[in-house]
């Protein structure tokens, strides 16, 4: 039986094989990118890593899916 591709964060099966993450974490990544654009505009300049760090420090405000993707992006992504 062919093994399904799994989301590296929650280990759920990924239905759309074009994406890296499951449905929820793919959506969270889109939201995170939109958020980065807003932060960039607000501060004038801000690196992706600094943004992720700031987002991760905002416990209680950042949504749990966004937090998980930010954590994964911060520690494991090569982007």
């Amino acid at each position, binding site marked *: 039986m062919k093994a399904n591709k799994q989301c590296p964060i929650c280990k*759920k099966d990924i239905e759309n094989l074009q994406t890296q993450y499951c449905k*929820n974490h793919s*959506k*969270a990544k889109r*939201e*995170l990118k*939109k*958020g980065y654009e*807003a*932060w960039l*505009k*607000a*501060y*004038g300049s801000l690196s992706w890593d600094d943004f992720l760090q700031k*987002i991760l420090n*905002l416990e209680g*405000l*950042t*949504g*749990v*899916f*966004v937090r998980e993707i930010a954590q994964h992006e911060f520690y494991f992504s090569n982007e």
Partner: protein
Amino acid sequence: MSSIETPYILGIAEKPQAARRIAYALDENNKPQNKRLKNIPIYICKRDGKNIVIAPTVGHLFTLSSIGKTWNYPVLDYEWVPSHFVNKNAKTKNFTDVFKSLAKGAEDVIIMTDFDREGEVIGYLILKYLVGKSNAERMKFSTLTRRDVINAFDQREKSLDMGFLNSGLIRHYIDWLYGINYSRALSLAFKRVSGRFKTISIGRVQGPTLGSVVEHENSIKFFVPIPYWTIKSEVILNNENFTAVYEKAELKTQKEAIQVVKDCSGLTGKISNVSEEPSFLYPFPPFNLGNLQRDAYKHFKFSPTKTLEIAEKLYLKALISYPRTDSQKLPMTLGHKSILAKLSKQHNYNVFANEIIAAKKYKPKEGKQTDAAHPAIHPTGKELNEVLPPDEKKLYDLIVKRYLSLFGKRAEFLKRAIQILVNKHKFEVRGSKILNEGWIRYYRPYYSISEYILPDVEIGTEVIFNYIESQEHLTSPPRRFNESTLLKYMEDEKIGTKATRAGIIQTLFDRGYIGGKEIMPTPLGISVVNVLQEQYPILVKSEMTRNLEQIMEDVQTENKDIQGTILFIKRELKDLLELFHQKETEIGLALYKNLQLSEKSDIIVLGECKQCKKGELRIIRSRKTRKRFVACSSYFDKDIICNVTYPVPNTGTIKSTKKTCIHDGLPIIEWQKGRRKVSMCISPDCPSKKEGEKNESK
């Protein structure tokens, strides 16, 4: 039975307390005869030379049941059967027997149940299946005061309200059809894939409500906070400090915020304008059920279900009008002068009631919403013959004060703004002076205002700033629903009716789909919604239930043929279920996978069990009580059966810290509720708890 003089008119009341009150009002001597049949109180009164026997029910004595015993779907044929046939715990058998027996001596029947859809259905089913008639006279009243009950008797209708009856009946049929078919379809889909049976129930209104809670939770889970800035400043006016507000409430960029501070620092401002304008505040509209439930939650933290229960009790004591109403209207025919006169004799309200009477202003403020059957909730003014229990007293006070406030004058203020210009940047100091408190005096403590007096200043005067600084903020995620805001959301989205919304929320709690005071969907609730959203979205969207509501309204208002309508709905449901059947395996598989994940995520492993040294300690939730506790996984191991358990807080979130307590070696958990976060040993006997020490960990 032999002691009741026949023939008589049989009166069907909705509750024992209502039967008693109606009997006392109708009896010419205020002394109805009280008897007990099968331990059910019945009242015999005399009026206009006739005997009237009034017997109570306890809500519905009949329920819908499927014809045929197979456990499959679609189920489209049903019949009304006595509730105690279906639910062995229903204590309705004696009531059923009493009506059967009283029917024999009745020459006429008067329905005296609450005047709404449910009241009509309750009366009709007793009439049809226990008395053997299809129509009867109908008393319509909105309060149980003597005056209203006698009026309702004298002006009783010759027939039941067919609009209400048909709309009530069709509501029962539709809810039953959707509830039973979809609950069976979901449970069978799960069983076919997993091989095990699990009840997964969903109703036509529960589905969209649960869907909304999950959707709302998702908007919190996907939330990214965005920064913005505000300018904070303080000025000195006539040797006093005042907060000044910057012309833009929010600044989107840091650069702009820094620029404003840079432009203004070290400079003095100049008063460029002083403006004054009168402002008015009018009383809030009278209470309908939704408003009352929201305000009771706001002031007393009563859940909507609790508010309705208390309001029902006050209604049965004839202290307030019928609470299941959408109306914000209080027609003059209610006799406000008389109600106010009675309230003026009640210690807590005499001052304000007398003030209104002296002003001779008897027309209350009204709202826009209407209800065909009842006016807005209002006090009857009936004397309080007993000391009310604390919760009833609170709700009664809120209702009376709201009612009194409707006769009050508008509140008047003088709003004042001092504009200060600094280097082209505008700041404003705002204040207000109360000129007349008006209705607010009557409505205290449920509404209050404070004034902020500004000094007299002249245009052109120089103003010194104590400071001007920028402050960074972050946007916040949407707030979770509480019972009150969820109720409001359902009202706005037209999900359910005034009478059913609170019950729907309670059902979602009872079924373990949602939890918490700040309402969160449980993993089970999320799983069910996720599967349905992907495979069968109609059940979690509000369109279907809204369309059905419209159909039911049409049956009431346009007198649409009930048989034709139900046939149409059955046909539509059959098609929808056929679609479900085609997707049954996919739905079952998705449910199975999601529920497995949700069951796993319900379990938090804390570490090895110190007692059996084989199993692991896990936080689990009892399926029966929904309470959390720590238990050993070896409980299910036949060779060990380790039954060690530890209590943990039932609310808030719990995380494993992977640390152990220095006193007893048991796991330390981190418990968080709101802003409070505590690390604690799971043992209730841990010395660290007794000594009040901080938990130390290895």
